[in-house]
């Protein structure tokens, strides 16, 4: 038998497919992966500590920087947690606008997922197609808040400003075009023989392992577990919408892609219904500038983020700032399954696994 040596290489934190500052320590035997250990913390900004020195309202824009790819979702999660803590009622219209913005963020995040997966597989054109479509969502964010990427549009008790008149037609035409976009991705990427061969059967995660590791979101649903917080524990007004939870069957990279692809369509359905039901009226409850939740009260609120279960645990000490704030970041938890799905695969599969587990490092490192 030939004497071979194991090779330890560092994928990242400076690497073309490191998805923002992820460092994976890969132990290789030739091209076969013996182990792949993710090291996080390169984008650590101590968001949780910052929260302790900001008032509840001041902390809102920081949350937008957690999952900056689906920027409205972490903000919605935070403001809803604070509303729960302080017992604030949100006006109808604001709730609907939050749903629309949240689902648009989810679509944006999933489109970037497809695009970055494509470029990680070497199909540069796929990225450009997805970015082109995502650009329309960014434009809509700009219309409403003036910000494209880090739109802290939500406020405690509602939203910052009412929708501009050009927003609704833009959303409607975008939602109408979703099937066309999916068809294009289908033609360029999903239908490609090489693309399928690179994804099918790669990075398999069983339902038991996924649950044991605490994997949530599309990654869990790809394993065949029909678990979506929007259905399992509806928050906001999600119980009013009719949509399906797409599930996969194998838990491989291909299913993770397909689940997200289907979720884009479902999010489109939710947006359409929200647009039809969108009432007139107030957009923001009367919330005092400085408010002090009851001492010793704590709340855990979770929403279905673009990457999975996004939870906020807030403890109040009766002051105007949270005593402690913890973010349950789905990216971080999902990323921990990376060694499990990568072992025994090839180097090229690590890249696929990172891309399909879809971590966003701003959220994983916080």
């Amino acid at each position, binding site marked *: 038998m030939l004497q071979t040596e194991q090779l330890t290489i560092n994928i990242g934190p400076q690497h073309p497919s490191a998805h923002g500052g992820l460092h994976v320590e890969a132990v290789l035997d030739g091209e076969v992966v013996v182990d792949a250990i993710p090291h996080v913390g390169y984008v650590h900004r101590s968001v949780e500590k910052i929260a302790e020195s900001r008032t509840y309202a001041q902390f809102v824009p920081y949350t937008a920087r957690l999952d900056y790819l689906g920027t409205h979702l972490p903000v919605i999660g935070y403001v809803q947690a604070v509303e729960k803590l302080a017992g604030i009622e949100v006006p109808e219209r604001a709730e609907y606008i939050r749903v629309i913005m949240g689902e648009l963020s989810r679509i944006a995040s999933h489109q970037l997922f497809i695009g970055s997966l494509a470029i990680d*597989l*070497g199909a*540069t*054109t796929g990225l450009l197609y997805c970015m*082109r479509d995502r650009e329309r969502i960014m434009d809509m964010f700009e219309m409403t808040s003036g910000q494209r990427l880090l739109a802290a549009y939500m406020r405690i008790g509602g939203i910052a400003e009412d929708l501009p008149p050009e927003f609704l037609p833009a959303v409607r035409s975008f939602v109408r075009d979703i099937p066309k976009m999916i068809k294009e991705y289908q033609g360029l990427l999903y239908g490609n023989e090489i693309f399928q061969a690179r994804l099918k059967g790669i990075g398999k995660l069983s339902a038991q392992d996924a649950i044991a590791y605490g994997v949530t979101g599309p990654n869990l649903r790809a394993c065949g577990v029909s678990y979506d917080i929007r259905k399992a524990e509806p928050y906001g007004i999600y119980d009013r919408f009719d949509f399906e939870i797409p599930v996969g069957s194998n838990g491989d990279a291909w299913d993770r892609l397909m689940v997200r692809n289907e979720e884009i369509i479902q999010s489109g359905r939710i947006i359409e219904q929200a647009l039809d039901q969108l009432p007139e009226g107030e957009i923001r409850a009367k919330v005092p500038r400085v408010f002090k939740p009851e001492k010793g009260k704590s709340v855990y609120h979770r929403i279905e983020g673009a990457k999975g279960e996004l939870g906020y645990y807030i403890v109040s000490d009766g002051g105007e700032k949270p005593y402690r704030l913890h973010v349950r970041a789905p990216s971080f938890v999902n990323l921990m399954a990376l060694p499990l799905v990568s072992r025994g695969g090839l*180097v090229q599969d690590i890249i696929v696994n990172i891309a399909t587990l879809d971590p966003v490092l701003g959220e994983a490192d916080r």
Partner: protein
Amino acid sequence: MQKIETLFVDLSDWFIAWLQSLGVPLAWADAILLLIQFLCIVGIILANITILIWLERKVSGFIQQRPGPNRLGPHGVFQTVADALKLLTKEDIIPSKTDRLIFITAPILFMTISVMLYIVLPMGKDMQVVDLNVGLFFFISLGSLTTIALLMGGWGSNNKWSLLGAMRSVAQMISYEIPLALSLMGVVMITGSLRLSDIVAAQDNVWFILLQPIAFITYFIAATAELNRGPFDMPEAEQELTAGAYTEYSGMRYALFFLAEYTNLVAVSALLSTLFLGGWQGPWLPSWLWIIIKTYLVMFLFMWVKWTFPRIRMDHLMAFSWKVLIPVTLVNIVATGFGLYIFKGIGG
């Protein structure tokens, strides 16, 4: 018309006659001409690559629905020149732990081999530097030498990514060299010669792409792998291996690798048009213009494939070569043999 057709041949004849009139013996005149031809080849390569890199960017831009370079000069034509200047003026970095000799010679070797490919290419009627009787064999064997340059670069860099890239490159070349050579056998069997000028002459009536369509496709695929272009750009694979064998290279040394890859691309495209698309033959236009047109069409095909396909996985790549390409090429050879036998039987 005739003048344009034989422009370059006339030029070289006139040059020899002029030298002889100065009292230079014929052998010396030929040697001087050879030197000038070499310089011409280098000139053609550099000019071509400048256009080619610009074209690649424009084509990729077109495929990806973006304008591509458009700042420097009309439609950004001078972008490549600016890039070349930038690479030339960059600091020459050789990492301290490298195997210096190998590290330095690798890009030079790569470029030299790529330029040598042009010696046997017929670039027009009677326009060939050397018309070797084993021209095709020469081309294939030289082409496979580029692997050694890549391996040298990857090994000499003393970098794990480079080593992985080089390993992949060797594995890929070994398995793709076989279908590459085998798919050309059909053409050789029909022509009965390895001389490239004979192969062009044999396509007087019908192009070999019609007689050997399968060989064309298999050669195209194998050549993509040989050229390290997407979807077979394993040795580079920037998303996985940072830049593979080229990771430690920068400045002009990197540019040399880059140039050599494009030089190879032009050479292989020219060979493809020579073997399957009738070479320099064509109506109305002069022969040297025809080969340029055909070469560029083939290159466009290479670019199209590169910019629309994802990268194949290493083990799939090997499996594809051994389980699909090689059997197909072998069957093609047998079929060609039978076809020739029957054809000769009928034709007498």
